[in-house]
C-alpha cells in the first residue's frame, strides 16, 4: 500500500512539473499577458469574474487580428488573496512565463508587496480594485510599475461623506465598520475626515470583527446616539445582516455605503431593510457601453459580471491602449505609455496621472436602492 501511494504521488508530481511548461514554446507571434487574483478563498467570486473578463477581452482582440500583429495569450494564477502567494505568482509570471504586463490583483494586500518584483523585472501591473493609496504611492514617491484602474479609498470615503452632508443634508452620522479589514478601516478614516471638515458630527463609531453575524450590541449604541445617517463601509453580506438588524431595532436612519455593497445578492438578502439606502459605485449600470459588455459577458459565461469584471476589462483596455501607443511589447516602454493613457472605459474616464498612477477625475456613481432595484442617481464629484 505504502509503495503504491508513494509511486502514485511521485508520478503525479512529475506530471505536474511538466504540465506547467508543456511544449508551448513562446513562438514569435504570441505574447503573454499575466493575470493574478483570488480564484480560491473568500474573494474567489470576484477573482473568477475578473479572470473571465480578461479572457473574454483578449479573445476579442485575437479574433480581430491580434495586437501589433501578434496573438495574446493570457496566463492566470491564483493567489488565494494572500500577499506572499501574489509575490510567488508574479515571480513566476515575470521570470518564467515572460509576460509583458500583469492585470490584477484584486486587493491592496496583494498589490503592495509585488512592487519590488515588478521593478526588478521591469513589468508593469494594473491593479483592478486595490483601493489603498499606498498601492501606487509610498512616502510621496510613485512606484514606477504599479498602476490601477479604480479610484482610491480617500476619494470614495470623501464622496460618501460629501454626498451625505451636501446633497442629502444629513449632519449627524454614525459609523459601523469592520475593525479587521483594511478596506473598511480606510473608508472609515476618510469618511470621518471629510464629514467633520464639512461641519458634520460623528455621533457614534462602532466596530465589529470580520465574520461576525450579530451586530445588535453595536447598533443599540448607535441607536442611542440618534444619527441621521449610518455609514457602512463593508461587504454586502454583512451589510444585509446589519441593515436587517438595524431595522428590527427600530433605527430609522438612512444607510450609505461604498463599492463593497456591489452584488446581485445584496437586495435579495436584505430585502426591505436596505430600501432607500445609497452607495458609492464605480459606474452606472444603465450606461449603453456598460450594457454592451454585460450582455457579451452573460452570453459567454451564463451570469452577470461582478464589479471586478468591469474594472478588469477596463484594465485590459488601458493596457492595449498603452501598447499601441508605445508600439512595442517592452515593459519599460509600456510603462511610459501607461502614464499618458487618456481613454474612456466602461467604468468612466481613465486619465492616468503621471505622479499618482491612478485614474484622475474619475466620477463616482451614486446608486440608490428604490423599490427593490438599483437606481442610478447621478455622477458625483466631491467639492
Amino acid at each position, binding site marked *: 500500500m505504502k509503495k503504491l501511494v508513494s509511486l502514485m504521488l511521485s508520478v503525479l*508530481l512529475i506530471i505536474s512539473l511538466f*504540465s506547467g*511548461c508543456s511544449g508551448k514554446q513562446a513562438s514569435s507571434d504570441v505574447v503573454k499577458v499575466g493575470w493574478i487574483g483570488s480564484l480560491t478563498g473568500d474573494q474567489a467570486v470576484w477573482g473568477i469574474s475578473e479572470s473571465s473578463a480578461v479572457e473574454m477581452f483578449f479573445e476579442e482582440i485575437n479574433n480581430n487580428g491580434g495586437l501589433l500583429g501578434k496573438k495574446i495569450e493570457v496566463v492566470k494564477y491564483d493567489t*488565494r488573496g494572500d500577499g*506572499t*502567494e501574489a509575490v510567488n505568482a508574479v*515571480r513566476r509570471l515575470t*521570470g*518564467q512565463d515572460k509576460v509583458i504586463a500583469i492585470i490584477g490583483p484584486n486587493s491592496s494586500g496583494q498589490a503592495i*508587496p509585488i512592487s519590488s518584483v515588478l521593478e526588478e523585472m521591469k513589468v508593469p501591473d494594473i491593479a483592478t480594485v486595490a483601493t489603498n493609496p499606498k498601492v501606487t504611492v509610498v512616502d510621496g514617491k510613485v512606484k514606477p510599475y504599479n498602476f490601477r484602474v479604480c479610484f482610491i479609498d480617500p476619494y470614495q470615503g470623501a464622496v460618501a461623506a460629501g454626498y451625505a452632508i451636501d446633497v442629502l443634508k444629513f449632519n449627524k452620522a454614525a459609523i459601523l465598520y469592520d475593525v479587521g479589514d483594511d478596506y473598511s478601516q480606510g473608508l472609515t478614516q476618510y469618511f470621518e475626515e471629510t464629514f467633520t471638515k464639512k461641519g458634520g458630527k460623528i455621533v457614534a463609531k462602532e466596530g465589529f470583527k470580520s465574520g461576525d453575524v450579530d451586530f445588535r450590541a453595536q447598533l443599540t449604541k448607535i441607536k442611542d446616539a440618534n444619527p441621521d445617517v449610518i455609514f457602512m463601509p463593508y461587504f454586502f453580506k454583512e451589510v444585509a445582516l446589519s441593515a436587517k438588524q438595524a431595522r428590527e431595532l427600530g433605527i430609522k436612519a438612512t444607510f450609505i455605503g461604498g463599492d463593497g455593497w456591489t452584488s446581485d445578492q445584496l437586495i435579495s438578502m436584505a430585502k426591505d431593510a436596505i430600501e432607500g439606502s445609497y452607495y458609492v459605485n464605480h459606474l452606472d449600470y444603465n450606461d449603453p457601453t456598460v450594457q454592451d459588455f454585460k450582455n457579451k459577458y452573460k452570453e459567454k459565461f451564463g451570469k452577470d459580471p461582478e464589479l471586478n469584471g468591469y474594472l478588469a476589462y477596463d484594465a485590459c483596455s488601458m493596457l492595449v491602449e498603452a501598447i499601441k501607443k508605445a508600439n512595442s511589447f517592452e515593459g519599460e516602454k509600456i510603462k511610459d505609455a501607461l502614464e499618458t493613457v487618456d481613454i474612456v472605459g466602461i467604468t468612466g474616464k481613465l486619465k492616468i496621472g503621471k505622479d499618482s498612477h491612478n485614474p484622475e477625475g474619475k466620477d463616482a456613481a451614486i446608486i440608490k436602492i428604490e423599490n427593490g432595484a438599483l437606481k442610478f442617481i447621478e455622477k458625483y464629484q466631491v467639492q
Partner: protein
Amino acid sequence: MLSWYYIKGILTLAGIYLLPVLGLSLLTGFTGLFSFGHAGFMAIGGYTTAFMMVKLNLPLIPSLIIGGLFAALASFIIGKLTLNLKGDYFCIATLGFGEAIRLILDNVQYFGGARGWPGLPLKTTLTTVVIIDIIAVILLRNIVNSRHGRNMIAVREEELASSVIGINVFKHKMMSLIISAFYAGLGGGLLATYLGFLQPKMFSLVRSTELTIIVIFGGLGSITGSVVGTLILIALPEILRSFANWRLVVYGIIVVFIITARPEGLFGGKELSFNFLKGLFKRSVSKARGEN
C-alpha cells in the same frame, strides 16, 4: 525548465518559513506541546524588526535579533500564565493568543492597522536566509542533544515520571517555548524584509496551522524532517500552480496521503546525519560484498 529567479523566490520563502517550523519542531516534536499561535510570534517579530529598521535605522541583523527577543519575551509572559495548563488547554490558550495579537495589530494605526505597513527596506536575500538557517539548525541540534534537550524529550514521553526523577517540568517547557518563539520571531522579521510589506492578515490562524502541519508532515522529533517538510510543503503549491483552481485540493490530498501512509511523518524521530549516512554506506558495501 523553471527559471532561477522564480526558484530563488520559492527557496527564500521556504528558508524563511523554516525558522518558525524549527521552533515549533522543538516545542511540538521534542517537548510535546501543541501550539496554534506561532503566527502571533511571527507577527511580533516581524513588526518589531520593521520598527527597528524603519524608525530607528538599525541594520538588518540586530533588528532581527531584537524582533526574535521581543517574540521570546511575549512567549515568556504567555508561558507564565498558561504552561501549567495541561495539553489541550495550552493549545487553546496559544490559539487565543495568536488571534489576539492579530486583532491588536489590526487596530494599531501607528503600524498602519489592518491596511498594513508598506515600504519596508528589502534586505532579505537567499544568502542571508541560508546562513541564518544553517546557524539555526546547528543551534537547535545542539540544544536537542544537550541535557536540556533530553529532559524536554523526557517531558514529552512521560511528564509525571520525569518530574518524579527530579526534572523541572515547568522550566523545560518554558525554555522550549521561549526558544521556539525566538525562532518564529526571526522568521517573521525575515518575511517583513523579504516582502517589504506587513499586514496583520498574513499572520492568521491558517498560518499557524500550516506551520503545525509542516512539523507533523516532516515527522515529530526530527530536525531533518522539519527541513525536508518545509521544502516540500512550501514548494508544493508552487509546483501545482498550473492546476489553477484545483491546486489546493491536490495539495490537501497529497498531505493526507502522506500522513496516512506514514503516520509518523517523513522522518518521525529519525535524523539524517553524517554518521547515519556512513552506516548506510557501510551496510550497502557489506551487502554488495556478501553477494559477490
